[in-house]
């Protein structure tokens, strides 16, 4: 079965619907409306398919996507519906990496371009940019073959004084072998941000090598006599871990550490929290009070704030006190990644550029082994491993962009696009759980890199308010942590719910204007060239041709000819539907037009809708 006709697509927050044909390809589900507009859904984006009980109008099929799109189809015949349902169930649970879209995706690029795409980001160069290796930090080859820690990258940076036995000893005392390594170096104060997993301390165990390791980190920074150890978990969770032979650092055993819990909840709490949030905002006819109460009770914004608070603590310790900080949670790949990367974003303006932001994700998330495959449910796996940790990080970044509109080179479009592709499995970057596995899969040879794609169209992701000199006056960002500055990210969680977005977008308009400014500047340059030529009376045949060329060029780029920036048309982030100004309250309209005489009755019906 490849297509089903006369399928209705119900609008999520109104009673409107459109009918069309549903096509199922190997990679996509495509709904083509009678007016030929198409809704395309990648199978990898589908989180769940649900067949609801049969109604008089047909058999409803609800598809929830990982990019927060929710579609509700009504298929006329139950058999067709069941066919689609079972095909989708088969398609959306790939069991091996080879089945993922990245391995079949072919964007019409030659091999050289593809390879260059993978070379765009070089973490070695990034550490050099930070000033590492230096007289206190060195590159170690202990993990060259992933022997010490298979979830870490090959190249790791440790204090010069940390010898191999210390490293090996420390790694044995850390969960999953994730011993303390450098992730960010704050050159100005020579303070380091290091990361690791929890120590296997249990109730009393200690490890001299691990203690030496922390000592070495401390000694590598002359600015401070101690090093902060940030356990990003709530204290209770960390204590519970002791019973399983894990736990946290005992201040008595480690000289010169300052230990601190920051209380970010675990992946399970985050998963449930986002689920609740989506339930709340997904309900139709939501009242303001239920919305706000729902926001409160789901706890999502509280968790987001906790992550930002932790990053601020880290940033202050490093930039104000000049102390080095060691960050960990349980395994050191979820909360640790969030806090380290967000802290770096606050400390270093480079990470607030488009390229820098990619480097940051590559470093703190991809290379240090955030388990993208498990967390994003890329393969059919344990649902308890799925968690929106990376989404939450992107949201924290968004909250910061809202507070510091001039500080970031990119707009929220970039965040949304990255989120889209973390789940799409269309590019190789986020596949699998760690670098070692990625190498085994030969992703660099067999797939394309998302970063190349994003950089190619980076003009779409620019923040027009970005002010490069802002970094000079505000090298370190100091966000407000008052709760009123944390907002619901509508453009993420309702990105496909067109009716909720502003109908015109400031962002898009200003980007268009900016584009037109560039063209005008070019025109001026051309015109000036021509007029100097004429004035200097320096005209020969060659110049004549040049002049003619210029003249046509000049006429071509009159501002009225400018085409609007073409952004993703399918998603309807703020104002991308700017032209559709006639859009209206679908509810009332739907009920209005439904019947002729009892229009009055249905109007009240519609009114009830709008109120409740």
């Amino acid at each position, binding site marked *: 079965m490849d297509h089903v006709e006369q399928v209705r697509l119900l609008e999520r927050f109104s009673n409107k619907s459109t009918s069309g044909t549903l096509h199922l390809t190997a990679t996509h589900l495509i709904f083509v409306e009678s007016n030929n507009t198409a809704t395309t859904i990648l199978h990898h984006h589908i989180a769940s398919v649900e067949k609801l009980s049969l109604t008089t109008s047909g058999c409803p099929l609800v598809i929830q996507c990982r990019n927060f799109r929710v579609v509700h189809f009504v298929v006329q015949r139950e058999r067709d519906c069941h066919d689609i349902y079972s095909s989708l169930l088969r398609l959306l649970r790939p069991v091996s990496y080879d089945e993922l879209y990245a391995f079949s995706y072919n964007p019409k690029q030659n091999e050289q371009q593809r390879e260059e795409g993978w070379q765009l980001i070089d973490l070695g160069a990034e550490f050099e940019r930070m000033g590492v290796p230096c007289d206190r930090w060195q590159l170690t080859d202990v993990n060259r073959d992933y022997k010490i820690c298979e979830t870490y990258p090959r190249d790791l940076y440790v204090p010069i004084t940390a010898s191999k036995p210390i490293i090996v000893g420390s790694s044995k005392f850390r969960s999953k072998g994730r011993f303390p390594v450098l992730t960010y170096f704050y050159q100005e104060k020579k303070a380091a941000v290091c990361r690791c997993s929890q120590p296997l301390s249990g109730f009393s165990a200690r490890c001299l090598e691990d203690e030496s390791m922390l000592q070495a980190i401390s000694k590598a920074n002359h600015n401070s006599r101690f090093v902060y150890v940030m356990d990003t978990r709530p204290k209770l969770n960390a204590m519970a871990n002791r019973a399983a032979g894990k736990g946290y650092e005992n201040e008595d055993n480690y000289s010169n550490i300052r230990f601190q819990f920051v209380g970010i909840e675990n992946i399970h709490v985050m998963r449930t929290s986002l689920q609740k949030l989506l339930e709340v905002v997904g309900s139709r006819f939501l009242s303001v009070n239920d919305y706000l109460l729902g926001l409160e009770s789901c706890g999502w914004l509280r968790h987001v704030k906790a992550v930002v608070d932790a990053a601020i603590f880290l940033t202050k310790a490093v930039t104000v006190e000049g102390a080095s900080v060691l960050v960990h949670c349980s395994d050191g790949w979820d909360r640790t990644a969030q806090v380290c990367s967000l802290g770096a974003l606050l400390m270093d303006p480079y990470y607030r550029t488009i390229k820098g932001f990619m480097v940051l994700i590559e470093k703190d998330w991809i290379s240090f082994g955030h388990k993208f495959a498990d967390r994003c449910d890329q393969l059919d796996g344990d649902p308890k491993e799925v968690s929106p940790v990376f989404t939450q990080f992107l949201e924290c970044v968004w909250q910061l962009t809202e507070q510091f509109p001039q500080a970031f080179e990119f707009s929220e479009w970039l965040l949304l696009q990255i989120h889209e592709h973390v789940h799409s499995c269309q590019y190789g970057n986020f596949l699998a759980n760690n670098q070692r596995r990625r190498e085994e899969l030969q992703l660099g040879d067999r797939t394309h890199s998302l970063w190349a794609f994003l950089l190619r169209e980076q003009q779409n992701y620019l923040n027009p*308010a970005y002010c490069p000199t802002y970094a000079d006056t505000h090298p370190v960002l100091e966000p407000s942590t008052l709760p009123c500055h944390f907002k619901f990210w509508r453009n993420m969680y309702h990105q496909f719910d067109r009716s909720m*977005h502003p109908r015109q977008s400031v962002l898009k308009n200003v980007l268009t204007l900016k584009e037109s*400014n560039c063209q005008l500047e070019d025109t001026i340059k051309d015109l000036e060239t021509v007029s100097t030529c004429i004035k200097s009376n320096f005209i020969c045949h060659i110049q004549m041709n040049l002049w003619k060329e210029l003249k046509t060029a000049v006429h071509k780029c009159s501002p009225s000819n400018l085409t609007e920036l073409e952004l993703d048309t399918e998603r309807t982030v703020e104002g991308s539907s700017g032209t559709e100004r006639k859009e209206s309250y679908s509810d009332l309209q739907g009920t209005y037009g439904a019947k002729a005489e009892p229009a009055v009755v249905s*109007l009240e019906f519609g009114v009830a809708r709008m109120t409740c």
Partner: protein
Amino acid sequence: MFLCSHFILTQPVTFLVKHQQRCQEMEFAELIKTPRVDGVVLRRPFLPTVEGTLCLTGHHLILSSRQDNTEELWLLHANIDAIEKRFVGSLGTIIVKCKDLRVIQLDIPGMEECLNIASSIEVLSTLDSVSLMYPFFYRPMFQVIEDGWKSFLPEDAFKDLESMTEEWRLSDVNKDYSVCSSYPPLVAVPKDVDDDTLRKAAAFRHGGRFPVLSYYHKKNGMVMMRSGQPLTGTNGRRCKEDEKLINATLRAGKRGYIIDTRTVSVAQQAKARGGGFESEANYPQWRRIHKAIERSSILQESLIKLVEACNDQSHSMDRWLSKLEASNWQTHVKEILTTACLAAQCIDREGASVLVHGTEGTDSTLQVTSLAQIILDPACRTIQGFQALVEREWLQAGHPFQQRCSQSAYSNSKPRCEAPVFLLFLDCVWQILRQFPCSFQFSQHFLVLLFEHTYASQFGTFMGNSASERSKLNLSQKTVSLWSWVNRPQEVERLSNPLYEANCLVIWPSVAPQSLLLWEGVFLRWKRSSRCLDEAYDEMVHIIQYNNKELQNKVNNLRRQLAQLETEEPLLQTP
């Protein structure tokens, strides 16, 4: 914005002070026990502290550091909502809470000085006598190009209507304010209805507010009217003239909608007090729809709670969200917007005429009729058009500004008639502006400016409670109109939205809770982050607009030059 009214400061300060002092000598001298104190420290959140001399004049609290290029604080006493005193030893502290929601702290050395200053401020900020209000003393130090008092006359508005339809006439039945004390002297009514009928209908409506024209929808000839509630009482009184009046607005065979801004039960209860609603039996051509916009006392409570939540320094997310929820402010915004959308939909989509009323017809009714016009009529989205709307639907229509805006969110005194009815309207406009950022000629600065001036102003525009009160006070002669100030080119420029592109369509906002935002420009205005947000937006928009205009001019000039050279230079003509 540290200056209470920066526009005053654009004028030489000394001149103003002299003028102030004269007033002070005459009428306020005995109220000001200590006119000046040195060594006062001004503290404001997120801004540097200023040390200087505090001066009290009849209408202003001034703090000047007496150094060049440093800030001066000019605060209208009328802007002060409440003050608090604290003492540590002989150092007194006065916390001044303003009606524009700003909170500042003044550290005053000397207990006696502090007490004197505090009591003077208390008296001066709560003067009851209208004749002592600042607008009567304020003399404009800008050139009035167009007198705002004459900018929006009902006669002119009616000329526009006449060009579209002949079914309406301007009646002067209320010329001496005897038929309805809160209506203007001239109102638009159906042509076929005579003044006598109007008088009788007025007797049947709350406050004499008989149904009058609020808006004519050019596209399909449908109209929106507004009135007070009908005085049916418990025994279902009826009034043939009232029925005739509103039926006269319907086309043959057409039906209309009556939007009652109250819930059914509230409307029912109103009967016991002589009010009520139009029964189906007596108004068969009309369908009644009840909505639930809250009464003013509840709105005031909501504002107080909201501002309290915004000023809460607690870092608990749950606390913030639950306080925001408990304030119900956003619920009111949603309810008002939804009702306005409904009215607009009846007119534009259903092709039906609408009558809107609540109880008095001076609060929720006006919110609905004015917002519906913003949605339907592109003219209302221009700077001039919005002024005309405020003039027509709020000032002329008899919204009691003086009563509603005499206290704001910090006041300790028991609220009497205070209510943020107009502020809620502005908030709703801001919500629509946020959703259609290119369809309004003005930016949110204009809305914030109006918010400020309704609560404290040097202009007479928002004084009084009705056209008749304003005329008795002779405001148009004795005070300056806000519109005179606003409509000067430099101010228009400041309030303009650079992204504006005229949009002739009806604009339907989303009323989903996720689409409605807290108006940071007012409620989080004095917090740092929202300020830097504004700055970034202004900056971005300014640079891009400026560049774009400038560059286009340059291109055009170069083209012209080139064309000229082309004709002058024969060499170019030969191939």
